[in-house]
């Protein structure tokens, strides 16, 4: 078959039934999918079968269909919608604030060496101080309400974006800046047309890191002092021994993380198409 189609004339290749070609292409696509998701599917299958067959403790690891049913119930019944909304609000608000502060500040700091040098030690110190360790301090300052939760997420997401932005600006190729200067580009033009676009890939590294951190801190903050939110639901379901509900909340948190990352990857692909291009 392969040899035939290799040395076949265009006329001969027309004779290949289109259905077969589609099937073959479908088979290739299926194999790629299998290579990528095969192990995950095997894991899920093992969970499902293991749980129903009693190889693993079904009270701790309920079968997947029960978890999915609990998720569906929570979503359709509306019990979890409030929690999703409040979790999204907390992490979204904090993330947006961190982006809004860290990117302009980072662009500024990366440009001016003296500012960067003066602020770097304190930034490194803050970065190394776990945001969770500071959560009690934030609670003391801002109370146990929304403000402290949003603030602890904001604090943790701020530094990856800030440091990535500063790094991006600092690592812009001086030779490109010099090239722009030979055309008479002003400082602002160089910033807008060279420094800013060159920093975008690095900024995205920070954004994706921060998105992960935002979810992590969200869950921790909601477990410690909240009566709503997905993190709270994980803890609450466990207290009440509603294990499928607990896994439902975990599943939704994972979905939230995957969605956030997918959104950022899509945005990155659109903005940094040039960085992916190879021969």
């Amino acid at each position, binding site marked *: 078959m392969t040899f035939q189609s290799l040395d076949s004339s265009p006329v001969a290749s027309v004779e290949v039934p289109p259905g077969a070609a589609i099937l073959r292409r479908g088979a290739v696509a299926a194999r790629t999918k299998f290579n990528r998701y095969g192990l995950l599917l095997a894991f899920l299958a093992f969970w499902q079968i293991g749980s129903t067959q009693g190889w693993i403790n079904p009270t701790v690891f309920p079968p997947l269909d029960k978890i999915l049913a609990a998720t569906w119930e929570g979503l359709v019944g509306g019990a979890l919608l409030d929690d999703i909304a409040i979790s999204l609000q907390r992490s979204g608000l904090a993330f947006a604030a961190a982006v809004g502060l860290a990117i302009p500040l980072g662009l500024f700091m990366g440009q001016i060496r003296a500012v960067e040098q003066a602020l770097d030690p304190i930034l490194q110190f803050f970065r190394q101080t776990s945001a969770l360790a500071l959560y009690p301090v934030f609670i003391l300052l801002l109370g146990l309400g929304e403000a402290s939760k949003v603030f602890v997420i904001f604090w943790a997401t701020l530094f990856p974006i800030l440091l990535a932005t500063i790094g991006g600006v600092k690592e812009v*190729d001086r*030779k*490109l800046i*010099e*090239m*722009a*200067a*030979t*055309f*008479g*580009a002003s400082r602002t*033009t160089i910033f807008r*047309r*060279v420094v800013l*676009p*060159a920093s*975008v890939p690095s900024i995205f590294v920070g954004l994706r890191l921060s998105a992960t951190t935002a979810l992590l801190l969200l869950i921790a903050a909601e477990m410690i002092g909240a009566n709503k939110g997905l993190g709270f639901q994980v803890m609450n379901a466990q207290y009440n021994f509603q294990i499928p509900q607990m896994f439902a909340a975990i599943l939704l948190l994972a979905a939230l993380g995957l969605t956030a990352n997918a959104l950022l990857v899509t945005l990155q692909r659109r903005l*940094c198409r*040039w*960085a992916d*291009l*190879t*021969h």
Partner: protein
Amino acid sequence: MNVVEDTRRGEVTVRDLSKSFALNGQRLPVLRNLQLDIRGGEALAIVGPSGCGKTTLLRILAGLDRPDTGEVLIDGHPVRGVGTERAVIFQEPRLLPWLTVLGNVSFGLTVRGLTQAEAETRARHYIRLVGLGDFEAAYPRQLSGGMAQRVGIARALTVQPEILLLDEPLGALYAMTKLTMQEELTRIWREEKVTMVLVTHDLEEAIYLSDWVLVLPKAKGALPRLIEIDLPRPRDRSESRFVAMRKRLMAEFGLH
């Protein structure tokens, strides 16, 4: 139009130029009291051993570095920083990776305030001139070294400078690509009628491209020498006068 102004287009004058660098607390002079006159439309190559100051001289001409003493005049006006009548082609193409070939070639013009559409119209002409008409939409990462350098050349030409300053522009290219590009540079130089100042470490390239070769010595006390390349164009690298000229230049460096 002023006739006198017109004949002076692209004229470069260097007067009493000196430049030194600090090295381990000592001043290391690289250019000492240099005098140089380049008429408009001429091609000058600067050669010399590494550390002789050839790139420094080019950067001063470009307005990227300042001399310690002395001055550079372009068409009679002293140089203070970069200027619109000069364009630089660097050893590396220095393309902006997020812009297409068209975007990169238009860059200089858009920086100077032309609209994107105006800039692109002019850029397209020069993209075709360097033979990249089919690659307008390509990104730098998709180009070979020679193609990328052509983009750099087109970008410099698009701003229609009087003086092209080239810092070892073909130094990083493969031998064959290099020969083709030398031919193209000669063609472009004649078509665009620009003054060309070229730093190179390749003596054959210097003879092939230029009217004058400035030999900068590294040794203290030795004087720079200006050698006229009085050969008809187009030049033939294997012709006897070309070979003789190469011998003479090599002798300047004590080579045989």
